[in-house]
């Protein structure tokens, strides 16, 4: 038990994360929390979903346990398993169980990456039962009111084999995240990357240009995250054009002509 407590403390967010709201998401998330409804965050990568969860956890003063999903994630990885310690079998809670017990927020990032048979364990937690069966222990955990479940996924261009099932999605309050409005994004980039207003402005302009090419050569435009990366490199003394190249254009695509065109945009702006 002590061990678990110590572990959960690691997940507390003690200082206020920097978060600029895009719209009403904070208000809605608070209401969802009060009403014990789980959250589904939709949006392209790097647009602030994880940061939003950190902020929410801080505001609600709950620990935040994040699980990055992948196709090898098993139910045991989420719920827990027996391990042998000193010749004895010891039950160790998985992150989901830990979160339920501690009344924490459990955030399953990129939930579509998980196999469908794994995703079903969250079903009874995500409806009004709010319970987590632990088969191995023959226990049924009832989530305390403080517990919240949140999942994220990117509805963008992806494999048809990976789609969120209706039976899963229809349990959530869904918040759509987009790239922040230009003024907001500028402020984010300025704060996070330590660049001046003008540089932030130009970076956001570059992002807008790349986003114009979504589905016309690019799978997705540059995310806020990439802008911050470029900005940080610039703050560290890398020349702007080069910083954009390594932090923005190269990560976006491997197509040589598209890279050349993106590079022209960078060279026009910087």
């Amino acid at each position, binding site marked *: 038990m002590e061990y678990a407590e110590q572990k959960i403390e690691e997940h507390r967010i003690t200082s206020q994360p920097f978060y600029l709201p895009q719209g009403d998401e904070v208000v809605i998330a608070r209401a969802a929390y009060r009403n014990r409804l789980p959250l589904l965050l939709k949006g392209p990568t790097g647009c602030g979903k994880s940061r939003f969860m950190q902020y929410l956890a801080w505001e609600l003063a709950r620990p935040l346990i994040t699980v990055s999903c992948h196709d090898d994630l098993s139910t*045991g990885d989420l719920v827990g398993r027996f391990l042998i310690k000193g010749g004895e079998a010891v039950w160790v809670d998985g992150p989901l169980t830990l979160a339920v017990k501690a009344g924490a927020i459990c955030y399953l990032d990129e939930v579509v990456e998980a196999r469908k048979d794994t995703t079903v364990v969250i079903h009874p937690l995500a409806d009004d039962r709010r319970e987590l069966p632990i088969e191995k222990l023959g226990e049924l955990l009832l989530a305390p009111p403080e517990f919240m479940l949140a999942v994220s996924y990117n509805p963008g261009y992806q494999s048809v084999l990976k789609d969120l099932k209706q039976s899963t999605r229809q349990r959530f309050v869904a918040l759509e995240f987009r790239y922040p409005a230009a003024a907001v994004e500028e402020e984010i980039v300025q704060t996070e990357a330590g660049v001046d207003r003008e540089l932030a402005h130009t970076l956001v302009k570059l992002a807008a240009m790349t986003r114009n090419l979504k589905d016309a050569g690019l799978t997705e435009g540059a995310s806020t995250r990439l802008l911050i990366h470029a900005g940080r490199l610039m703050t560290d003394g890398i020349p702007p054009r080069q910083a954009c190249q390594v932090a923005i254009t190269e990560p976006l695509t491997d197509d040589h002509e598209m890279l050349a065109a993106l590079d022209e945009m960078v060279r026009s*702006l910087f």
Partner: protein
Amino acid sequence: MDADAISERLRRITAPDVLNEWELEEQAATVAALPEPLQDEVLRHYQAIWPVSHGLAALFLHHLPQALTCLAPEQLGDWTKAALAAYEQHGLRGADLFLAETEKNFLCRLRGESALPFAAALPRLRPYVHALAGPLHDLDLAPATSAATDTATLFLPREIGLFKEERQNFLLYKLLASLLWAQVASGTYRWAPAPTADLIQEVAARYGSRPDEGLPALIAYFRLFPQPALAEELFVLTETVRLLALLQRELPGLMRDAAALFPLLLAQRPPFPEASDQASVMEQLKRHLIGETKVGDANNPAPPALAAAGELLLPLARAGTTPADTAHAAARLYEIIAALPGPYQATPPLPCAISFRPAEALAVRTRRQHEEKTRFITALAALLPSAASPETGETGEDRPPPAARHQEADTALLLPGLAETEIPRPTVLLGQGLETVTIDNQSLALPPELQRLGQRIAADLGQVPPEYVAAAAGLAGSSYHPHASSPITEEIVIPPTPLTYDEWDFRRNGFRKDWCLLHEKEILPTKGTFIETVSRKHRGLLLRLRRQFEMMRPGERFVRRQRDGNDLDLDAIIEALADTQAGQAPSDRLFVRLRRDQRQIAVVFLVDMSSSTEGWVSTAIKESLFLMCESLAVLGDTYAVYGFSGMRRLRSELYHVKHLDEPYNDLVKAKIAAIAPQEYTRMGPPLRHITRLLTASDAKARLIVTLSDGKPEDYDDYKGEYAIEDTRHALIEAKNLGIHPFCITIDQQAHDYIAHMYGEVNYIVIDDVRSLPNRMPEIYRTLTG
């Protein structure tokens, strides 16, 4: 690397073939003699060439040392590519010649002794312009004699060869494209002062002229001056100053790079000693624009007119100026210049200057306004609740009695009737940000496409005119009636066993039952050389695709926690032990088993064979299909290929290339080669048919991939909103049955409607049709990866 290590690499590259020992030694020695950093790259190129032609690979190494005496290391890749191209075109001998005469055949090109053609700049420029312009302006690019725009197309020179370096020539292309974009974005052609405007009155009074309202505003303006050509030149010059300043603010990097070109342009510009004072001041102004700072000297002081002109131009560099400011300044400049001794002689335009096409711009604008108006009104009308219409008697309209059935003209049912004035109209208001529409106090969100369209209209006209909204409300409130007296325009021959399909009519929110007949047809295979040519042309790509698709092949993999299998699952055993210790019944799934996964994917490629695909498009589609089939042959997914076309609802045609369960063979290839543009694009019937086919398949994932070049459209009234809504509905029907539709389109305008039809993430617009063969397999990989 030493010669031995290199020999070993070469041996591995050429396996399973074996080189002669002496050949191997010689080649290894060649590579070993190269500077260390180059060796690896050379071996990589060698490896790429080897599967294409062993002989070429040998020649490549043979000529390499000589070539490297004049080739920069970073040109090696291009040189290799050029050698491969020479081989493709002229065979081994041609490649040999090319490689032997590198200095003559290759370097001179990159050294800028010949120009950069438009086509070579296009792949970089097109995405650049699209990114710059964003969704508000659809800008196309086309070659022409000089840089200009009609606001729909940016015309750029056929080639630019003013500079030695390719990079510099490209930069000029980029500068011109950016200037033209700035011209479109800042609305030069939208300047249309009323004949009563102060400036017009003033100029007309000064020269005793009268504005001609029948002309495009700019032309009418130039004609107010005694020398319209001078007025035009001054206007263009002034506007260029303004636009360059705009670029300086918006794209400072571009202008910094471009500044390096200006001295070169200046140096190239011939002097004009014989010029009149008028022409000489004009020339000075032009030189100013590209950075001439030297204005006269002690012997030859700058004319006061030049200083005055400079004063006039300065304020145009400020932010917030408009074409109206340009017009003002041009009129003042005209006064200054015209006061000098003439005659006015036109000096050559600056290479970085744009010319004007006001008449064409007006035509484009009129056409676009009309189009956007119609689209906006019909799209908005479709959103509004339609008033109950007493006219729509259902009797016999949806399903005509068999006798009457084929007598009815196709167009009849889709014409809007006259608006019924007594039908109460809802009050409709557009929200500020164009995100909502308010109907009788109820707010409704506008779909993104309509928002975008509204924004475009607002950008053009300042706002969405209220009469558009009123017209939409009227259209929604009115009913549609058949045109009873439509003449029979087509004799209809009914082939043996066509299939009937319903069609969705969005305006009545219901199906027209058994409205379309779908005929299945065979494509006559052709014997031509298409397949052979394509295999040769895309040899490299084919190899790469085979490799990529091979990697996607469901390899053998271990599945864990099986009841029995090839090996023990250690994790499971440990867990079972732990469970036993804990007093739990341990699991009996303790084995790993080697399993070959099934991808279980069934996909149908549906190819638009409408006449609009004629030419390039059709070829690119065929090439892509062939490459796709070759790739799928490696992967083993189940797939089918059909083409579709037809004319009118009673003759929708589906062309069979390959059924789902049919093997891929030469016959299929010959049919792909024979795909040829036919008639129109009625999307509904083929989609519904394919959906029916796919529901019978038990694959885990079922896909329809359509390849198209534009909107659905038939000869009759199957167009616009109606066609889009029917297609959309057919796709929804498919989705409801668990089938994933996906569209690959090359229609640049597709963003307006295609997301509505296919859903936000289920389509991709290909920028350049030539890249389709490259992109399609890649898209398929992503889709099913």
